[in-house]
């Protein structure tokens, strides 16, 4: 008999036992193996908040009833979440509609003089375009064309200027008015003469190809004459109806004398003015509210209905936002509302995919349907969050109550806030201009900015992203206004800036980075075609709303002849001067970034650009420098106020010929004084 311990069975048994034992021991000692690799143990938190570990028990496959129960429970939770968002967005729509409505009532009525001034401005723009066309083409070689087109442009520029003055003046004299009519006739005459001169010059060309090429360039000149005729007719009609020429004036002005005031104008109806008047009527704001679901309806809606309704409300928010911007623009530029609507880019909220059909059938019978429904539910919930966030951002730019509970602004308060906002914007636009200023000039924007922030804080309750109440803003900024910052001139040499400025975007109190900080990280988009005349009057989508996911059509590609597809590009530079990607001549670019400030802070901003630039901080225009000029770091200094938290910075930079650069360098005021 062998020893019992030596029997094969015993040895095998002992071997297996030691294997199992060591494995069990390893699992017992190593928590990661146990919880992660094997996933046999799970941690649960009891009602008392204790963490309890227990072996996971595999539940049997749930039956159809159980699946339904689970999905219903999940749906209920998500539905409540979406309903809450829908309620918020609904409130936003109501408040935005209120603001848009109030803006309409505070808008100064555009009178005919404003419309005529706007037409004169268009005429000036067309004349400048004709000038550029003649000067930069073969047409320049036609004898006398250069003088004729210069004369025409000067006349149109002077006319637009005088017409603008006339529209702003309260006391319009007859002489001045009839002078405008005479000027319009002169423009028409000069336009016709120029066209005849050019056509004759073209006829004299020997080469038929040149003749054909030059003839192709003529239609815009004809359009210019038509445009001038329309303007002249509108002006004459208005003037004859309102201010008949007296005899003395008629005697002095033979052409005016020829035109009998009693005679009906050449065109019985002036379509442009009539259209403008008709278009000036905005759609009644109640339209937006009509489409809005009632609050009680929201309570009864299913998930699919809520989601659909939320998507519709997102569209309404976009419309209201664009409408508000159009009204602001119309008011600011004194142009017809319809024209402003065309100029304003309409942003679009990403309102998620169409999930209606999937959300409607909450009756999954198998694993696949269960998964599909849950995915749809998650997507709907994400989209709802996104819509609510975007609506909040849009509303903060429009103004209004901003979800402040309990205390609602009355219509009068809202109107006065809007008026105040308009005044601040006008003041900032005036002081932002940098043209004609010496390098190193310092403009103090703090007063207007503090008022604007206080207004924003008042309208948005507890005050946007950074916290702090209206009182907080005014007191912090009040102190900063009184203390520090007395210099009106700062000398900043390029070498000193290059040597000393450090890259960054954060102003923390305890930071070791002190002194000049250049903004090194940007999202840049462009190029768009730069208009030849009054380029800042043409706005591009980023000025309406910065949407980093959006793509636009830009400048025509020189090789393909198709518009370039533009998207925001991340640019980080170790150099003070930022060079936009896809740099090209006669182009417009936008650069966007954010700056963090730990507290409300006075900052001196040095802005430099090659060539023209416009800079907004927290949507407030702080710098406007037109004209072509080389880059200097100290082209213009602005004393500005940063809100506590994140502050947006948007730069519009325009390139004429050659290279394009811009720089934004910031330095806290107190550091500067040290």
């Amino acid at each position: 008999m062998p020893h019992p311990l030596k029997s094969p069975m015993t040895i095998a048994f002992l071997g297996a036992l030691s294997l199992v034992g060591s494995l069990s021991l390893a699992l017992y000692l190593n928590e990661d193996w146990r919880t992660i690799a094997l996933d046999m143990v799970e941690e649960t938190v009891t009602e008392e908040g204790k963490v309890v570990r227990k072996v996971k028990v595999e539940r049997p496959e749930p039956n159809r009833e159980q699946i339904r129960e689970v999905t219903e429970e999940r749906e209920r939770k998500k539905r409540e979440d979406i309903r809450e968002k829908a309620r918020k967005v609904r409130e936003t729509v109501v408040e935005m509609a209120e603001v848009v409505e109030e803006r309409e009532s505070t808008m100064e009525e555009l009178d005919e003089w404003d419309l005529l001034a706007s037409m004169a401005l268009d005429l000036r723009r067309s004349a400048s375009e004709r000038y550029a066309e003649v000067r930069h083409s073969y047409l320049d070689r036609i004898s006398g064309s250069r003088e004729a087109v210069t004369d025409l442009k000067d006349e149109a520029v002077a006319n637009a200027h005088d017409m603008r003055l006339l529209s702003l003046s309260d006391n319009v004299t007859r002489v001045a008015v009839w002078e405008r009519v005479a000027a319009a006739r002169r423009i028409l005459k000069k336009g016709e003469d120029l066209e005849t001169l050019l056509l004759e010059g073209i006829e004299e060309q020997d080469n038929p190809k040149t003749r054909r090429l030059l003839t192709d360039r003529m239609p815009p000149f004809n359009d210019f004459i038509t445009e001038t005729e329309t303007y002249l007719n509108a002006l004459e009609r208005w003037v004859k109806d309102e201010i008949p020429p007296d005899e003395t004036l008629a005697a002095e002005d033979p052409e005016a004398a020829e035109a009998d005031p009693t005679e009906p104008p050449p065109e019985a109806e002036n379509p442009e003015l009539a259209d403008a008047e008709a278009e000036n009527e905005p759609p009644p704001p109640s339209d937006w509210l009509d489409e809005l679901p009632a609050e009680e309806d929201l309570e009864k809606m299913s998930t699919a209905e809520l989601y659909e309704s939320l998507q519709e409300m997102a569209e309404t928010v976009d419309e209201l936002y664009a409408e508000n911007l159009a009204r602001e623009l119309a008011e600011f530029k004194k142009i017809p509302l319809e024209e402003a609507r065309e100029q304003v880019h309409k942003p679009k909220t990403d309102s998620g995919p169409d999930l209606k059909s999937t959300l409607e059938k909450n009756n999954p019978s198998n694993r696949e349907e269960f998964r599909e429904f849950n995915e749809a539910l998650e997507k709907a919930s994400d989209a709802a969050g996104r819509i609510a966030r975007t609506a909040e951002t849009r509303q903060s730019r429009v103004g209004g109550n901003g979800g402040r509970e309990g205390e609602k602004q009355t219509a009068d308060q809202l109107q006065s806030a809007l008026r105040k906002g308009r005044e601040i914007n006008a003041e900032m636009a005036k002081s932002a201009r940098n043209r004609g200023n010496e390098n190193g000039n310092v403009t103090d924007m703090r007063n207007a900015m503090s008022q604007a922030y206080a207004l924003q804080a008042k309208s948005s309750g507890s005050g946007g992203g950074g916290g702090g109440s209206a009182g907080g803003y005014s007191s912090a900024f009040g102190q900063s206004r009184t203390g520090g910052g007395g210099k009106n001139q700062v000398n900043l040499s390029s070498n000193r800036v290059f040597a000393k400025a450090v890259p960054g975007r954060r102003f923390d109190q305890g930071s070791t980075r002190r002194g000049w900080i250049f903004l090194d990280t940007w999202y840049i988009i462009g190029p768009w075609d730069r208009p030849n005349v009054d380029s800042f009057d043409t706005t591009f989508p980023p000025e309406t709303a910065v949407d980093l996911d959006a793509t636009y059509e830009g400048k025509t590609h020189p090789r393909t002849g198709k518009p370039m597809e533009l998207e925001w590009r991340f640019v980080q530079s170790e150099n003070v001067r930022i060079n936009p990607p896809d740099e090209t001549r006669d182009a417009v670019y936008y650069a966007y970034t954010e700056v963090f400030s730990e507290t409300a802070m006075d900052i001196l901003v040095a802005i430099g650009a090659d060539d023209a630039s416009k800079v907004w901080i927290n949507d407030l225009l702080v710098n406007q420098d037109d004209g072509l000029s080389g880059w200097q770091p100290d082209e213009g200094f602005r004393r500005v106020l940063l809100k506590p938290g994140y502050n947006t910075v948007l730069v519009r930079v325009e390139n004429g010929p050659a290279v394009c650069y811009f720089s934004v360098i910031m330095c806290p005021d107190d550091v500067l004084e040290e």
Partner: protein
Amino acid sequence: MPGRKRYGEDEEVALSMSPLIDAVFLLLIFFLVTTMLKRDLKEVEHIQLPISRSSPEMPPDETALVIAVDAEGEFYLDGEASSVSELLDELRVVEQNDPDRRIRIDTDEYTPFHRLAEVLDALNFRNLRNVGVRTYHEKYN
């Protein structure tokens, strides 16, 4: 005593392997049946992680925010395709609610570096410091 043989003298003691193999197989089947390997739901499947020989091993963390950037430079948040605005919005939310949340960055070995720089800069700007980059290590995979 002649004729009497002592047991074991002519017969060698041999270890029979079959019960041992049976037991081992039983154990193997037991573990195969009971083991449930978890899939990382936040992983983007088509991303080939860069290889590293010096990365430390970190236990998985289900609460971590996973930002992935694939070879085309597209962003993914927790395994779902996302845009720049969504990424920046999410970071804003994280900064407000849980600034110490762990953030894992998954990149492809061919991800354009400027896209990674963009993510790192956004994290830095939002003052989110608990950030790690995931790599492939033969030892751990």
